[in-house]
């Protein structure tokens, strides 16, 4: 039945996708750890309340399993991001469960955003986002090194200028 490979549909135009920095995984995992704090506090409270040990162990096992699973998923999700610059357009891929590929012709770009939150800044990564006249254009590349992000933005801006033809 499988006559055509999924990978071929989401393959890089030539060579391979430029990956994003593994620091993005670190950033997202730190967020995960911050989110898990209330869960841990909940466990401690359960212990004080005097619940049967079985339940506390079960709670810990489930919480740990969720943590490990999320840890692993973040790694895969970060690994799924990639971009490629062609002569006339930029391609971005992302997603594991729902896979996405977006092609943005340089001439359609209206602006290029660079963004970095506090965790991103402390780790030295930046998000690049492309905007077109369509709100549904979903071209976001997270986890680029600041120099790489700035260079990409400048290249995109220059090519956009060259090929731009208004709305």
């Amino acid at each position, binding site marked *: 039945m*499988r006559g055509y490979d999924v990978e*071929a*549909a989401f393959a890089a135009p030539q060579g391979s996708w430029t990956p994003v920095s593994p620091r993005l995984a670190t950033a997202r995992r730190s967020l995960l750890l911050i989110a898990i704090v209330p869960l841990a506090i909940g466990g401690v409270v359960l212990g004080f309340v005097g619940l049967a040990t079985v339940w506390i162990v079960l709670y810990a096992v489930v919480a740990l399993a969720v943590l490990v699973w999320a840890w692993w998923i973040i790694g895969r999700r970060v690994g799924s991001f990639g971009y490629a610059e062609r002569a006339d357009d930029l391609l971005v891929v992302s997603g594991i*469960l729902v896979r996405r590929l977006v092609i943005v*012709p340089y001439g*359609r770009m209206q602006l290029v955003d660079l963004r970095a939150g506090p965790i991103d800044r402390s780790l030295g990564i930046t998000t690049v986002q492309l905007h077109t006249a369509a709100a*549904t254009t979903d071209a976001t590349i997270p986890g680029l090194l600041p120099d790489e992000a700035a260079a990409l933005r400048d290249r995109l801006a220059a090519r956009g200028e060259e*090929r731009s033809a208004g709305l």
Partner: protein
Amino acid sequence: MSDFVPSDDSGAPAGPTAPLDRPQRTAPLTPLLQGAPAIPFFVIFAIGPAGSLVGDRGLPVVVVGVLGALLGYVIATAFAWITWLKRTYYFDAEGDLRVDSGVLQRSSRRLQLSRLQSVDVVAPFLPRLAGLVEVRVEVAGAGDSRVVLRYVTVAEGDRVRREILAKSTEATGPQQEESPPNFLAGVPSGRLLAGLLLRSVTVVLLASSVFFIAITVLTQGPVGLVFAVATGGLPILIVVGEFFRYHGFTVARSVEGLRLTFGLLSTQRRTVPADRVHAVALVAPLLWRRRDWVRVQLTIAGLGTESAKAGRDVLLPIAPRDEALRVVAEVLPGVDLDALPWVSAPARSRWRSPIQWRFLAYAVTGQVVAARTGRITRRIQVAPHARVQSVRVSQGPWERRLDLASVHADLAPGPVEVIAHHIDLAAARPLADHEADLARDARVRDHPT
């Protein structure tokens, strides 16, 4: 309506002959009309909280209500009069429209007419009785870039509109003579009413109306009827409201684009600039198909999604298919929607979209990309390659199981979206790459610079 009518109806500063480069006020009747909407609030206030105080002295409710209405009207009119005194409009030396307003805090808006988006002359119900209209001017730009001149005489409104159009073409290109608009299509009242009643939504709403009324009468007796009219009458009001809004719809061709005129109580005149149309949709609800009727919707650059609520995305509310196609040909010249090379979604897509899979299809021609969706309400959505902003391929878990993927052509925000749902995986990526190339080339061709 009121016991004092202004004696100086001719209005010293705002006569239709006054030069447009001097600040002038809108029609002097304006405050009298703007005060009117306040009446109901004051009536409620008078027979409500205030009435209980006055009522002790034995005044009948009707008298209290009328007095409240009069008082409220006078107060509201007085406020409207002060703002009217302070509001003026004129064309400045650069040929742009200026509107100065504000009592305590003055504001001066300048509309750059070289970026003109639309000029509409609208006649709401009350002002129309007094022979007045409002002029709505919109320029391209972010945020609030529109101005409403409220209210001016019909002649003055027409003069301002023509002046704005003249100034805008002066700024952007050669002066064009305004020729009488060329009639293209119209919607007779009978068809409009039948079409509104035959929409699936309306049928459901009307059925629920009858249901509501029956239930209330059965459980509460005839007394409940009053209550039932309030709850069950709402759907009828929606139908009546749309009937009034789109009554007498006509489409005509003029130099600035398609001229739409519609409305029973409040008449609207809108101009759709053909070169700003980004996408078109033909919508055919289930109960219209026997008669082969469709509605035509548009995505226009710079209008955004909120315009859909104001009904500004409608090009034709209801029309026979061939008439609709004739009008679409005006905004998408050279595109025959009946001769698109449709590629249907494979049969296995029924496992992903069991209801609509049979109608799912996409088409790509030299000029446009199109998609067909829906089973109950069928839609044909079309966009020229030159308007496609980006192209996306997406594949969810179900689609992966079935070797399917979807290709989206991203467009400016509006009612139209072109998505080739659940097509063969092997065709998805080549289609996306091809469409991206077509989009880029179409742009280069339109703007050789």
